[in-house]
């Protein structure tokens, strides 16, 4: 394990931000940290990066501080610095032996080649996030702590960040905190779910999804959908029916195999005009909502 915590607790007066967190992150993995606002994700990353001290418990990190890098959720820099100077400063502080041309390379990879010599005071929020990422990877750290790395980016930027994170798998360990569960589901090997300062689940993403996902179908119909919904609710193999839009239903079933046999017939009997129907893949969002409810 590259990161292990034992009984990690952080209190601010009467408020407990972290409550006995036992975290274990495998070297070379991409670990996703998810949880609602105030769950303690940023506090946990702050303690791992050395910016905060725990009230109780132990933290064991096998890499030295200079081989770690933290990217906060809203990177900001002195506005009179240029992008190249920010990355250059990061290089000097953590990896002075890295060749200078690497500065231009990471800025280019971050899509900031043309803005490299502009002052960061004129950067957009997305550009600042890219710059923060460039300054994070310049040192080729062994452990990256990324707090909402894609939150301010447009879809293309998010894709690039996710590709970068996926590319790092095996070369470095990444602990990534994100609200975008689809991103976590896409790039992470393991997940930690936090709520109210507690780590209520950690483990392989597959374990989380397989063990908890409720079988269900997404059904698209011509409106109105209510007659079909009422008919399905009467079926004993249907566990739940939710109207998710003017023309769609989420139908919870006892088993997917049973629904394959009986759902089309039930919809036809109800006179529904079916546009499409498909089983819902285990979704992190569903599991997350269930765990954090």
């Amino acid at each position: 394990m590259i990161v292990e915590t034992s009984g990690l607790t952080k209190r601010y007066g009467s408020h407990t931000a972290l409550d006995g967190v036992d975290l274990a992150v495998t070297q070379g993995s991409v670990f996703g940290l998810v949880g609602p606002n105030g769950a303690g994700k940023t506090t946990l990353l702050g303690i791992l990066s050395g910016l905060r001290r725990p009230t109780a418990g132990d933290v064991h990190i096998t890499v030295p501080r200079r081989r770690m890098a933290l990217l906060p959720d809203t990177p900001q820099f002195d506005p009179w610095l240029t992008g190249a100077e920010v990355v250059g400063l990061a290089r000097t502080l953590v990896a002075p032996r890295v060749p200078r041309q690497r500065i231009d390379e990471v800025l280019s990879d971050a899509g900031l080649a043309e803005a490299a010599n502009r002052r960061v005071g004129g950067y957009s929020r997305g550009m600042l996030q890219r710059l923060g990422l460039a300054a994070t990877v310049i040192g080729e750290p062994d452990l990256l702590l990324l707090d909402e790395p894609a939150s301010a980016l447009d879809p293309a930027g998010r894709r690039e960040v996710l590709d970068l994170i996926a590319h790092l798998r095996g070369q470095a360990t990444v602990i990534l905190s994100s609200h975008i569960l689809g991103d976590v589901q896409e790039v992470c090997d393991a997940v930690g779910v936090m709520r109210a300062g507690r780590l209520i689940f950690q483990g392989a993403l597959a374990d989380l999804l397989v063990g908890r996902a409720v079988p269900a179908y997404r059904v698209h119909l011509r409106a109105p959908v209510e007659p079909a919904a009422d008919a399905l609710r009467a079926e004993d193999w249907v566990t739940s029916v939710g109207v998710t839009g003017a023309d769609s239903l989420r139908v919870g079933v006892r088993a997917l195999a049973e629904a394959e046999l009986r759902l089309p017939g039930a919809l036809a009997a109800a006179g529904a005009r079916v546009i499409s129907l498909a089983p819902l893949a285990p979704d992190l969002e569903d599991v997350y909502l269930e765990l954090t409810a």
Partner: protein
Amino acid sequence: MSLWRLEWLRLVRTRRLVAILSIYLFFGLTGPLSARYLSAILGRVGPQGVKIELPPPVPADGVTQFVSNASQIGLLVVILVAASALAFDARREMAVFVRTRVDSVREILVPAFTVNAAAAVAGLVVGSLAAWYETAVLLGGLPPGRMLVGIAFGGLYLVFAVATVAAVAAVVRGVLAAAGIAVTVLLVLAVVGNIGSVGRWLPTSLVGALDALVRNADPVDYLPAAAVAVAGTAALVWFAAAVGARREL
């Protein structure tokens, strides 16, 4: 690009170095002017029929005006500029960026303190040289040795003032709070310096050293204050590093 260059760029690109040099240069040039022409100025602006007679100005008067203005407004500018650099945790995200890339807060503090103290001393030197030149032209020559020693004592006081800002900024997070408390501390020291013989030991007595020395005060009288300023500076910077290391972001 290093933390030293970062502090240099902060002074230059934000025009703060220009501000420090300008304010001291301004007082260096206007101090002797006002000393030389004070009678005439008062005669012009005073009430009609009232004649104000002042003793003829001597060269030391040129320095007095400079020291008086520089020790107030100049010092305030120095403290504000220093606070903007030394209260580095006030800019949280930039502080996170730097703090997570150094082994100790001393690596951030030492360049910030040194560069800003050097800028303050440079301002004082520029202003003092301007006052020296202007006084020589308008009022007469000043003793070079005493001028240099006086400038050195004044510079030492500014270094102590910047160290005070560093110590306060380690305790309070905001720039204005750090500047305000530092000014208050130095003011209190100045007031306490008027009590008995305590003043000769306090660094605040170095503020008036240049003026006193060109009026034939003994430089040895300022050695206790200078020693305390040196020791105090070291202690304050050490305190700033120790307390700053414990701060959480």
